[in-house]
């Protein structure tokens, strides 16, 4: 068991077109580092120069926005699903 990460289309060029990847991590921050370890270059797309997730990206752990949890320190456990979704307009 590991963490399943859903990769949005614009980032799939880093993951050899995989829409989902499995990684080990105990927090969102750790997961971001693990993504960079496996797919070099992806972190600079996800985070700004201070390591903060870009403001137009939403990250969900098991469908919950991490801004309702502990943001980038949100803990993860085996079997969690993490999705990365660019912000969209409404109506």
């Amino acid at each position, binding site marked *: 068991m590991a963490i399943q990460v859903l990769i*949005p289309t614009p980032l799939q060029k880093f993951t050899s077109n995989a*829409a989902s990847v499995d990684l080990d991590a105990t927090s969102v921050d750790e997961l971001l580092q693990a993504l960079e370890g496996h797919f070099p270059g992806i972190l600079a797309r996800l985070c700004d120069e201070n390591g903060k997730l870009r403001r137009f990206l939403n990250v969900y752990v098991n469908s919950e926005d991490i801004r309702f949890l502990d943001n980038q320190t949100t803990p993860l456990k085996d079997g969690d699903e993490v999705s990365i979704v660019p912000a969209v*307009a409404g109506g």
Partner: protein
Amino acid sequence: MTVTLSHSTLTGPTFTGLRCKECGHAYEATARHVCEDVCFGPLEVVYDYDAIRARVSRATIEAGPTSIWRYREFLPIEGDPIDVGTGFTPLLKANRLARRLGLKNLYIKNDGVNMPTLSFKDRVVSVALTRARELGFTTVSCASTGNLANSTAAIAAHAGLECCVFIPSDLELGKVLGTLIYNPTLMAVKGNYDQVNRLCSEVANTYGWGFVNINLRPYYSEGSKTLGYEVIEQLGWQLPDHIVAPLASGSLFTKIRKGFDEFIKVGLVDEKPVRFSGAQAEGCSPIAQAFAEGRDFITPVKPNTIAKSIAIGNPADGPYAIDIANKTGGNIAAVNDEEIVDGIKLLAETEGVFTETAGGTTIAVLKKLVEQGKIDPNETTVAYITGNGLKTTEAIASAIGEPFLIEAQLDSFNRAWERAQALHRADWDTIG
């Protein structure tokens, strides 16, 4: 697919591509909505304003169709539009409402009678589906709080496009039926709008559909600019002093501003300051909260309000809306559900306009801002009414009384009429 070319098409499109609103990175005008090469900021259409200036004048616009397509040079399409009569809705001088509120120059821009589905969404969808067809999509889709679903399903039906739309499962019946009637595939998702949107982002990743508010968003959102153009034209080619509009994702607000700015830029209207004020429901007011706290970033919330059409807890254009309100000396305020219902009733009773909860929110915030001295009575103020009350009758059903049930006899009527007069007197006593 063949597209019939009109004379104006032969002079070529007036837009040149897409550009990131945050970092300026350029992209081709395809179906994409985020700055995927750099920062994930939203993409915007780039126009050749010299070409537009050379082609349009007040006279050419006035000679155009009575729809949003009279402004087609300002919209991101290449060929002939899907024209279902969208736009050019009434701008009503609202004298009775103005007197009640203590204003002198109040107008209501009434998109509750927009075509074909009675909300401002017909504007954005007309543009999005025209562009979708140009980009070769045969299936269109959207995530919606109701109005967008109505509009996408209707205009897709007219254009002969396959349609699959997604809504939260707790929407008002009028909005569900008002979508199903056009026979799309309708997915009612167990969750709130933000969850629906997230699901759709994932569907958009895997199905080759044109999602009007996702991969077609740069084109879609441009349709809202026409709410700016029309107000200028209907005020006799002048800008208002102050506008009040509802805030859901914040997109409409920013595009009204863009519409004003573009008409100034190409010389169709004289420049002057316009204040922008936004309206939210307390039960979903992440933009109003950030504005009140002086923040430039949004903390998402979980919606809980009767104003479902504007219940977006994670508004993508929220930071831009705050920026505009601050820069123009406007305000962003929130009102509770009771005030929203009162706003719906007030607009109906004074102006004969029956709006939905978003419009009630706008009128209630307008009232609040006047009471707080934040709207000058002499300002030419335009309140944007974006949807029709017949779609959300649940919201007001318990707040508007009921008919007098009488026998088909004169004395029965006489007794009821006396009772009605007494009730009216009591009403006036409470108004003071």
